[in-house]
């Protein structure tokens, strides 16, 4: 870790404004450079030190306290997003594409997209009009192999500006709904980067004894890859992954979803350290901070999956924000939960005192 920026106190940043800015910046897995830059700029206002590694993981560091054996705590929220990639360009200039991360092909038709060629290019994933469909066509899903992106450009121009391997994002800015709900793309998991921001703000109001690393990780959506290498580098005593989980919707099973108005979610299960998880729950209870519980029976689909088994093992926690319509362009969440999650994590960090190692031992 090569920290190179000294940080000065910056203007305070509202989480909602931060999110609105963040989700407009492309950051498809493997191509997070731009979004990393923005995150590092904001982190600089709240951290002692900030750096970016070769893979564009962003590290913000805050160290406080007088006790000798301070815990090194790593928070991780991923900044990459699912998206598309140019696979081929046909003779008429229509773009064939593949997916990066878990894109649901049912939501692709009639999406607006931005193709990052030599310059950002606006396009649409077209759909065949009902008038031109053959009998029975309307009842079947269009396969991704049969979809193309239309840039409205002649083929020669497309081939000049776009090449195989260029990334593509959806165009879906943050929209404020009612009741402090917002929707937009890539709130999975930029919302959790906002949780880290809230944690920083809250920590500034508290006394704590810890060396805290706020890590905005890359390439989570393609296999928790950024967390794998950044956790190895930080080598923390404790890991806290922050990610989104499923909010309740009419068509989803109740036992696998969480309520939108009942606080952030603490996940428990074999992927998470039992004693530490209990400590996190106790902190929330002691300070009457609202939370929900969720059970993950196996390795979670979050950075915690990687963090737990790096080097000789890292005791890991998982904090989650309920989010509806995951991996669509209208991911929806309640902003209140972001602030609440940040508070629980900050209070948890502040609860670390001499003898904290006891909490890790069985």
């Amino acid at each position, binding site marked *: 870790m090569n920290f190179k920026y000294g940080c000065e106190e910056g203007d305070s940043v509202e989480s909602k404004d931060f999110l609105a800015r963040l989700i407009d910046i492309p950051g498809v*897995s*493997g*191509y997070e*450079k731009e979004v990393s830059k923005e995150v590092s700029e904001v982190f600089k206002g709240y951290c002692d030190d900030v750096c970016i*590694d*070769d*893979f564009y*993981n962003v590290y913000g560091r805050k160290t406080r306290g007088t006790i000798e054996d301070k815990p090194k705590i790593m928070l991780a929220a991923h900044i990459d997003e699912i998206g598309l*990639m*140019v*696979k*081929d*360009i046909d003779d008429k200039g229509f773009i*064939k594409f*593949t997916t*990066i991360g878990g894109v649901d092909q049912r939501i692709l038709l009639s999406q607006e997209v931005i193709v990052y060629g030599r310059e950002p290019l606006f396009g649409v994933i077209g759909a065949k009009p009902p008038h031109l469909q053959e009998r029975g066509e309307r009842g079947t899903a269009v396969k991704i*192999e049969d979809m193309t992106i239309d840039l409205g450009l002649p083929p020669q121009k497309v081939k000049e500006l776009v*090449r*195989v*391997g260029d990334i593509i994002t959806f165009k879906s800015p943050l929209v404020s709904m009612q009741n402090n709900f917002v929707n937009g793309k890539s709130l999975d998991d930029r919302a959790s980067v906002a949780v880290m921001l809230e944690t920083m703000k809250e920590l500034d109001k508290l006394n704590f004894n810890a060396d805290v690393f706020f890590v905005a990780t890359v*390439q989570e959506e*393609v296999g928790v*890859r950024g967390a*794998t*290498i*950044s956790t*190895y*580098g930080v080598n923390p005593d404790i890991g806290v992954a922050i990610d989104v989980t499923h909010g309740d919707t009419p068509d989803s099973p109740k036992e696998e979803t969480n309520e939108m108005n009942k606080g952030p979610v603490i996940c428990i299960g074999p992927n998470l350290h039992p004693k530490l998880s209990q400590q996190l729950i106790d902190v929330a209870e002691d300070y009457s901070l609202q939370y929900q519980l969720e059970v993950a029976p196996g390795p979670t689909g979050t950075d915690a999956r990687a963090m737990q088994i790096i080097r000789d093992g890292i005791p890991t926690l998982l904090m989650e924000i309920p989010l509806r319509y995951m991996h669509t362009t209208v991911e929806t969440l309640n902003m209140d939960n972001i602030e609440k999650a940040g508070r629980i994590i900050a209070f948890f960090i502040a609860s670390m005192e001499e003898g904290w190692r006891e909490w890790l031992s069985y």
Partner: protein
Amino acid sequence: MKDLLKKLTETYGPSGNEEEIRRVIEEEMHEYVDEIDIDVMGNLIAYKKGNGQGKKVMLSAHMDQIGLIVTHIDDNGFLRFSNVGGISVLNTINGRVIFKNGIMGTVSYEEEIENIKDIKLNRMYIDIGASDREEATEKVSIGDVAVYYSPLAESNGRYIGGAMDNRAGCALLIKTIKELKDCKNDAYFVFTVQEEVGLRGAKTSAYAINPDVGIAVDVTSTGDTPKARTMAVKLGAGPAIKVKDGSVICHPKVKDLMIDRAEDIDIPYQIEVLEWGGTDAGAIHLTREGIPSGAVSIPCRYVHSANEMVDEKDLENGVKLLVKILENEIEL
């Protein structure tokens, strides 16, 4: 190139049994490197010193191949088997296989099966011509591994053979070692084991070497055969610079560097977006704190069959590209 490719593709070496192919590769290039090491996994690591100012580069080509491992020998001397790596039913039916000791066999399936879709590997067997179990066990034991028997053929500037995946990549590294003159960078040429069973050799060798940059050299699929899945890679249109596959999203800076070097020497090249599969770069880039990695791929039709096809020009241009990358400064 042909002689080298013939020697490499016809040498035995399924995952976990790489002794022979390792010996052949070592013999082929040991005079041209500064140091050679074989680690506990069996990776063959050849080191060529740079001028002291460059980067530490790990180039990796896996030398293992897919195979059929004997799990049971029945009373009549037929061998039941399982797969080592991606052996498919379709590519194996009625093909010839060869064991390390030269014993040959043909692979067939239970005759009562009427629908080809019902054939699974566990309903197939290897027939080595033995008349009973006793005769079979004199020649083959449980745990022995057979590979496709496939002498190299040439047609129209293209080579057809078994284990092009990834002896073609090994040939590329060997040629690169021989043709490197003014190597700026410290180059570790690693002929890795056990790629076909999960990029296992690359994982340990990358950890030990801890390079600044990783470059995998392997074969990739093409989209230029009748009714192929859409893929903008063709045989003969140049080595492919990988953007992604199932195991890695290549570091954009490594990818761009490869493109720049290909344009410097004005060779044809292609951009590869592979929607499945994986290669050693997948293991290398996640080593320790992360190692920016990329891959040079050799377009190859019919991957994981006994008759994989590559183009001579792609191989030659691939060597030129690797030499150019190593002889120049690597700025990331």
